[in-house]
């Protein structure tokens, strides 16, 4: 029941803060990776190149689906912003349901931007069903399709290092993150601007996906402070010898 209480509390906070954020836009600290991402989007539209967005292979039927959903939310916004470009972004994923959702998200983004005719079903691709086959299938998309920025966001294992290396070889911008801590360390070593920890879930807010994404970050901050207080309280009680 405690977990259910936290869930309801988070839900109420999210709804309340979303309404508030619609009237009062939030301002967040600068994250260099998202600054670079926003620049890359503009550059891709201007110079007729395309973005490659890798959503990883997090199945939506597992706990890893959360990062995939965050990637899809960002994709939706990027699809809208690049709808004026001659070359639509290419999206690769390593999970079939995620690939279908990426196609749907691209189509929704173009529809919202009034450019549905831009949508091509082959821009949302399944490139492999195992981690390494996924990486091997995504490499040609990074190499051969006039990509000016690689955005890797989702659940990837250490095979993400291959994608990061390919991006460096092609000398294109790389914005990379994963919900897997080992992979985050791989990206820390290989990406120009890595994203650490929960920064992955801030993607929507930083690409202007709407008030709900801003509110999500506020709720995360509030919950994080509550957890910190709970940890300090627990430690204090333990030191005082309370039976916890």
């Amino acid at each position, binding site marked *: 029941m405690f977990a259910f209480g936290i869930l309801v509390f988070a839900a109420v906070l*999210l709804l309340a803060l979303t309404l508030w954020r619609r009237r009062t836009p939030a301002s967040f600290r600068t994250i260099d990776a998202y600054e670079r991402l926003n620049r890359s989007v503009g550059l891709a539209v201007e110079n007729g190149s395309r973005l490659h967005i890798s959503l990883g292979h997090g199945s939506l039927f597992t706990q890893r689906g959360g990062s995939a959903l965050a990637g899809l939310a960002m994709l939706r916004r990027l699809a809208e912003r690049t709808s004026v470009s001659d070359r639509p972004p290419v999206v690769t994923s390593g999970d079939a*349901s995620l690939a279908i959702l990426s196609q749907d998200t691209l189509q929704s983004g173009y529809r919202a931007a009034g450019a549905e005719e831009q949508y091509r079903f082959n821009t949302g*691709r399944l490139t492999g069903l195992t981690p390494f086959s996924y990486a091997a299938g995504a490499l040609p998309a990074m190499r051969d399709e006039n990509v000016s920025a690689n955005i890797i966001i989702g659940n990837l294992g250490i*095979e993400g290092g*291959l994608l990061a290396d390919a991006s460096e070889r092609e000398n294109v911008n790389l914005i990379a993150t994963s*919900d897997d801590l080992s992979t985050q360390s791989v990206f820390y070593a290989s990406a120009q601007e890595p994203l*650490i920890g*929960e920064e992955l879930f801030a993607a929507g807010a930083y690409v202007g996906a709407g008030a*709900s994404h801003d509110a999500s970050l506020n*709720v995360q901050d509030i919950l994080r402070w509550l957890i910190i207080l709970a940890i300090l309280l627990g430690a204090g009680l333990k030191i005082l010898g309370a039976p916890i």
Partner: protein
Amino acid sequence: MRVFTAAFAIAAGLIVLIGYFFPDQLGSLQVVLIDWAVIIAAMAVLIGIYNLIAVQMEKIRTRQKGGTYGALAVISLILTFGLGLVLGPESPYMRWTVEAIVVPVEASLMAILAVTLVYASIRLLRRRMDFTSVIFLIVVVIYLLAIVPTPIGAISPFQDFVRQAVEMFSSGGARGLLIGIALGILLTGLRVLFGIDRPYGGN
């Protein structure tokens, strides 16, 4: 139609989620919905494979770079799929296909990855010369020294100390990051549940 799909997705998500907290009331309905999801996921794999074939065929048809590899991928896929249907997944030939082709290829990629990561670490300071990058590299080197066998055997006190110290800091840091990631997943899930984010094309 879009309203219907959104309403159905939100209702299904809420029932499955609340079913975890009230299994007596919603448990059976939750199981039915998860079973449906499993069937849909299986169908999604077939659609995904169709997508993979279509993309590779497009490459071949328009004579794009890498079209030959695309043809190889499609032929291998059709052969493996056909063999799997005829012989069944437990057949020794199917196992041989996996053990003699897929596993070695993935192991080779793993080997390339090891070299790639070493190279990335060496280039880290050229790419980003800042305090955290220096700390990152120092910790990596010290930890590697603590876990690799030395020509003179184990240097137990040093290795034990380093291992304990690094693991103490890294496990603390990792827990902090994981709490943040869990909160991010929670809020992302709630946005989808409320229909604010609709990755299924509802808005």
